Structure formats: C-alpha cells, structure tokens
C-alpha cells in the first residue's frame, strides 16, 4: 500500500468544478505532480490533502493512518502556498520558529533547527531579515524552509514556480528538485505547467474537470496518452482525420487524405476497429519529403527554434500540421508531402490513433 493514498476522493461545489472519485497513491519519498488546466480540480485536491477542504466522500491515508477528518494543524503536512503566505509581521527566523513552537521546540533547540532549515535552502544568516526585504525567489525558499522545519510527513506545493519570472524559474526548478530529493520527503505538487510537472515529479497525474485522465511517468504520458485530452494537453500535436483501413499481424494501415501510412499496434490506446479515426502526430513524428511521397501540403510558416525548425504545413483538407525538421529542409511556399519518420511507426515515434470524434 502506498505511503500516501487518496481513495475515491470527491468534493462538489455548487457552481464550480469539483473533484470526482479521485484515487491516487504516492510511495514513501515519491513526488507526485497534479497537472491540469484551471478548474481541473488540482488545487481543490491539494487543499483536501492539506485539510483546508473537507471531502464530501472518500478517504485520505498516510502510513495506513486515516487523516481525512483531521484538522490541518494536527495533520503534520507541510505546505508551501502559491503566494508563499509568509507572516509579514514576523522575521524569517520567527516564521520558521512558528511551526517548531507547535511541536514544543523552543530556545536553543529551535535556533539550531532554524539554522539547519535556512542552510537547507541556502539562505544561512537570513534569520533576522524582515520578510519584506526578501526577493520573490528568496521568499519561496523561506516558505519551503518554514514548511520543512517541523519535519512534516508530506510536503504540499501549490504552483511553486508560478510567481517567479522565467529566468529565475528555470534555476529555482532545478534547485527545488535537488532539494526535495535530498530531503527525501513525500511530495505532492500542483501545477498547470507541463514543464514543471515533468521536471519535478516522478509521477504525474493529469486532471481534467475534476476527474483523473491518466497517471504515469512523464515518458508514459507523452508516448502513450490514454485519452485525447492528455494527448492534446501534454506536448505539441497536430490532429488529422483519417481512416483505419486494415489491421493485420500487428500492422495498422491508415489512410490520411489519400496517403497511406503504416503504423504499429501500440499507437492505438484503445481497441479501434477499421473505420474513421483521429490521427495525432507529434512534430518530431513526421518528416518533410518531396511532393508525391505522402500527404500533400504546402509550407505556410516556418519558425527557427535552435535545435530544429518548426514548419507549418497546410494540407489539401485545410488542416495545419506542425513538423519538426532541419533548418534547410523547406521554404515557405514549397509544396511538400508528409510521412512518418519511420514506417511502420510506433507510439514512441510520435504517432497515435484515437476513435473519431463522436464515434
């Protein structure tokens, strides 16, 4: 049984989206990210973990102990709030001491623990600083030190990087990952940024409208999206309508606007019978070829992105398909054709089939 478990957790709100029948588990020392757009229920889930929202149904357990009805102050879950919620009238040391006092740790013992917590986030000597003097990044680290100082059983992070500017974000993310792993604390992170979830967590749960879409490693989510939502939400993708022509000996033949592509069995998440399908392609799954060798189209836009160049190809059906290729492969206005990079293409090649919309 996992260290931290959510069993069929449900929270309904009158008008807003809630959380429905959510079950998840995190092993001891594991890092779980709750990823989803706004309104997906990820923050509500985190707040239920923290004890700030009471679930309407379901249970939360830590180390087999049920904590569902436990008040936040009894739960021993550390939380880093989105806007940090540092106490503005207390200095940095007093902020950290606040949680220690709840455990009865005072005086010299407290001073030592404060020092350790500050050293952990690399802000030794900041104990007497006022909160208002801290930069955004420093505030975040103090909030982390404050949450970790009482040695909680679980660490909860609410959008930990959303208040940092892009330059700082990258570095903070790296530091945060190193720190959480070094402490070895079981962690749940809420984020709407795929990059944050992939970088920080070893397991990612994708939520949509209060329901769990898929849970797995970042690689699994990218390469084997279970639902159209996950496929669209994780990574870049282009969507074409096609037709599954035949399914023989593990090879699927799919026709897209006259071109026929051969795919391997793994590209279809569910069982799909011959007939109309949605074909999803990652930019790196298709290659540009001279006209006549696949799906015909015209290059309408080209965007240089360092390691590669993104081309937008408009097919005869009027669909815009994004393709990652070499910088000199084509120019805007060229007639090209699109085909899988490899045939027969597997899921790891960035091609997937989903049932046709409405089917």
């Amino acid at each position, binding site marked *: 049984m996992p260290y931290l478990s959510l069993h069929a957790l449900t929270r309904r709100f009158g008008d807003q989206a809630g959380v429905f029948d959510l079950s998840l588990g995190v092993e001891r020392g594991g890092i779980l990210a709750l990823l989803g757009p706004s309104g997906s229920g990820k923050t509500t889930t985190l707040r239920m973990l923290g004890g*700030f929202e009471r679930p309407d149904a379901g249970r939360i357990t830590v180390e087999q102990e049920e904590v569902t009805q436990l*008040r936040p*102050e009894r739960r021993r879950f*550390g*939380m880093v*709030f989105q806007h940090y*919620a540092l106490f503005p*009238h207390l200095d940095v040391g007093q902020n950290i001491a606040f949680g220690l006092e*709840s455990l009865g740790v005072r005086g010299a013992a407290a001073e030592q623990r404060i020092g350790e917590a500050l050293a952990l986030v690399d802000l030794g000597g900041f104990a007497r600083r006022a909160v208002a003097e801290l930069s955004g990044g420093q505030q975040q680290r103090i909030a982390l030190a404050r949450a970790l100082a*009482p040695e909680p059983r679980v660490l909860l992070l609410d959008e930990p990087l959303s208040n940092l500017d892009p330059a700082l974000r990258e570095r903070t993310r790296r530091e945060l990952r190193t720190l959480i792993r070094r402490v070895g604390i079981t962690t749940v992170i809420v984020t709407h940024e795929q990059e944050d979830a992939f970088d920080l967590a070893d397991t990612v749960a994708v939520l949509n409208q209060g329901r769990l879409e898929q849970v797995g490693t970042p690689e699994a989510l990218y390469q084997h999206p279970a639902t159209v939502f996950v496929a669209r939400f994780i990574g870049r993708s282009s969507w074409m309508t096609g037709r599954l022509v035949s399914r023989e000996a593990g090879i699927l033949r799919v026709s897209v606007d006259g071109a026929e592509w051969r795919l391997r069995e793994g590209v279809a998440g569910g069982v799909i019978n011959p007939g109309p399908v949605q074909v999803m392609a990652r930019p790196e799954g298709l290659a540009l070829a001279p006209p006549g060798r696949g799906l015909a189209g015209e290059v309408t836009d080209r965007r240089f992105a360092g390691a590669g160049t993104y081309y937008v190809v408009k097919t005869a059906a009027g669909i815009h398909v994004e393709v990652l290729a070499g910088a000199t492969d084509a120019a805007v206005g060229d007639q090209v054709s699109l085909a899988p990079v490899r045939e027969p293409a597997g899921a790891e090649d960035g091609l997937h089939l989903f049932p046709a919309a409405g089917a």
Partner: protein
Amino acid sequence: MSRGRRIGTVVLALLLAWLVAYPLLIVAVESVRGGTGGWTLEYFRRFGTEPREWQALWGSLWTSVASVVLAGLIGVPLAFLFERHDFPGRRLIGALVALPAVLPPLVGVIAFLFLYGETGFIARMVQGALRMDEVPWRLEGAWAILLVHAYSMYVYFYLFTRAGLAQLDHAAIEAAQSLGASRGRTLFRVTLPLLAPSLRGAALLTFMTALASFSAPYIFGGGFRVMTTQIVFTRLNGEYGMAMAQTVVLSLLGLAGLWLAGEGGPGTGRAGGKGVAPPARLIASPGLRLAATIGGWTLGIFLLLPHVTLLLLSFVPVGTWTIETFPPAYTVGNYVTLFSQPERLRPLGNSLWMATLATAVAMLAALAAGVLISRHRSTVGRWTERLLAVPWLVPGTVFAVALASAFSVHAPWVARIILVGTIWILPLAYVIRNLPLASRAVLAGFRGLDPALDEAAHSLGAGRGRTLRRITLPLLRPALAAGATLAFVTALGDFVVSIILYTYDTRPLSLEILSSLRQGDVGIASAYGVLLMALSGLVFALGSERQVVTR
C-alpha cells in the same frame, strides 16, 4: 461552517437585532399607537397638517442638500490642488486639513459662536473697524448652520476625492490626452466619471451627517426648524407620540437619501484601475504658485481659527470680557478650577470611562463579527453585517429616542428592561453608535488579510486560538487602531445622543460645556472644549501609528 461558528453567528445576530433593530421597531409601533391602546394615525395626520412640521422637514432636507453642495465645492477643488500640485507649505497645510475632525460637533459650534457670532472676535473686529453702533450680523438661522456644516463636512469630500485620485489609473488620463482631449475635456469626460464612486460616497456621507446634525441647529437654529431639534423639543414638551412620528419621518428621509445614492454606506466608492498616480507637480507659473500659496495659507488659518479661539477663551477669567474686541485679562484659573473641583472633574471622568467602555465593547463585537462572518458567506452573516451598519444609517437623535423608548419599560417577556435613568443607558447608546465605525474598519481589515496566512499557520500546527493571537490580531493592528480611534473620539465628544439619554451621574463633557455656557461661564466651557479637543487629537495621533506592511 462549523457548528460553533454557526451558533456564534446566530447569537451575535440576535444580540444585534435586540439592540439595534428592536428599538427602532418599537418607535415605529409607538408612532401608530393611540393613548388608549388601539392603533391610530393621529400623529401622522397632525404632522401632515401642521406647517411647523413641514417647515422642519423642508429645513432638514434643503440644508442637507446645500451642505452637500457646499462641502463638495470646497472639498473637491482642494483635493485636486493638494493631490496634483505642489506649492510652498503644501505639506503643513495638508496636515491642517484634517483639523475639523478633531473638533467634536458641539465644541466646533461653540468655537464658531465666539469666532463669528454676534459677540465673536470677527464681528467685534468688523464693528470696531467700521465704527458701527450695532453688531454687523447675527450668527443665526440656516446660513449659520450651513457655515458650520461646510467647515466640518468638506473634509469628507476632500478625503474621498484624494483617495479616489490616488488610486486613479493615470494611464486613462494620458490616453485621453494622447487622443487629443483638452485638459477640460479630460477632466469632465475621464477624471470626474472615474471619480464618481468616490464623490457619490462623499455626498452620501455628507448628506447623512448633515441630516443627523444636531449641535449646529440646536445652538444657532433660532427660529429655524430642522427635524433633529424638533424631535428633542417635542419630547421635552411631553408629546411622546408626536416625537415618535417625527422620528419615523426623519428615518425615512435618511433611507430615501441612501436609496437615491444607491450605495450601502460610506467609503464603498472605489475608482477603478490600478495605475500609479503621478507625483504632485510644482505649479510652474509664478503667479499661480503665489495664488495657490496665499490661498493655501488663508485656508490653513481659517481651519485653525476655531481651535485658536477656544484656546484663547479658555484663559479668560469669568466676567472680564465685555465690550472689548479681545479679552483684556488672561489666567490659568479656569483649568485650575476644572481640575481642583471634584464636581467639575466628574464629567471628564464620565466621558472617559463611558467612551473607553463603549469602544472596548464595540471593538469586541466587531472582532466577533470579523471572526464569524468576514470570510464565511451565510444569510445570517449578511444580516449581521447589515445590522452592524444600521446605526450609521439612522440619525443619532432617532437612535437615542428609540433606545429611550425601548428601555424605559420593565417587560422582560418582550425583551424590554429599564435602563433609562441608570448609568448604563448612555454607554449602551455609545456602543451601538460605535458599531458601524468599529465593524467597518475591522471587517475591512479581515477581508484585506490573505486567507492563506491563516491556512499557513494551521498547516504549521497552530490551532484557531494561537492563529488569532499570533497572526490575525497582530496583522489587524492598524485596522483595529483606526476603528477604535474613530469610535473613541466619537463617543468622547458625543452630544446628540447624550442630551436625550444622560443622567446626572453620567453627564458627559458635552453637556457640562452646554451648562457652563448657559451660566455664562465662557472660560470654563472653552477649557472643557480644549480638553476634549486635545484628548481627541491625542487619540488620533496614537491611533495613526505607521502601518505595518500587511501583504
């Protein structure tokens, strides 16, 4: 919502309903109650047919509207001048602008009496300068009331407009200019419309204050009738039913004003936008700068004159000042008398203990409301908040009459006990009058706090008690100080409620000032006034300590 919170909210709501709504209900009922116990509209019929009553109603209405216009005409341009322009002495005079606020209503009226009244300095100076046989004017009637109102109420327009200007999105003004609008067009098409919520808030506050004004009409009214004084005189004549009918009419007039303004109270007006206001610019043209400087200093002197007058008069020995322009003799004897005679000192003690108690109780009620309803939506909570605001919507005279009626009967089975005539009725009245000021400040403070701070404290193992003590209360200190300051100063200088409800044992400073004045003891009256003024100023100074950063 937890069970304890729900019970607490209901208890608070019931308590407020009993103290705030119930007395008003009793007034409404008694205004249609015949002497023999049946129902009657006799009092309203008489109200409708007596010209005196109509005069009073009309007087209240037009002086209140005129006060709004006058206060706006003074306050709004001043706010623009001080917010947008710099000139020598701006900071000093800017600080003086709030001076009318430390002048309790009755004290201000008396200062005006000795300054501009027929025996006041200005009148005597004019008389002496022009060698006239008689005093040049009498400070009496509507214009005297309006003069006092303009002096004390322009502050609302000034403060609201400055606050509105400070949070105005300056980009909107620059956008108008870049679209080719002249300064005048920008002012009328962009700036003033954006300020409309602030101006509406100030207008409503001024209207309600002017409607409820009692001291000025009481002292200067002469034959000029307004509703507040009319109610008190009718009660003095023993016509209680008639007084109830007048009270109902005055309340309805206040509600009508509120309804017309379409707003829920003072200070709800907020101009939109988050832009940064530009720093005040030094006026470029030397001529205009000189004009602004002279105008500013003249204003400063005008604002300071009442205070100086009182201070001066407090040193005048009894009976020495008769026909001279300025008093011929000065002494500290008045203060010595005041502090050495226990009977003279008692009103000061009375005002202090009653104001302190009333402030403490009102703040506790406001805190309870903050904890119980500020972040939890519920029907009971909404009604509690409305009840807290009611004493502000109803003129003080109305409330005093309502409390006097409700708590003069021993009938515990209908929740009525005798408090009138005891020492408790006046502190209770102060508490109720203080509720809107205290709860407004405290609720706003609570709502300004990031709820995540509470949650952070809980997640760090602190229960409700420790969170309140260590996090919420320290962060609320500025809001608590602001609410308590206003409440204390209002209660300390109260006259309108006191004159209806006081007993000999609880007579407050304001009534002692009035009786000293009636005995011709101008020096003692002024000394009391100075004391009241100084205490108010001191409390304001203590209450306005620099705000701690709360976010």
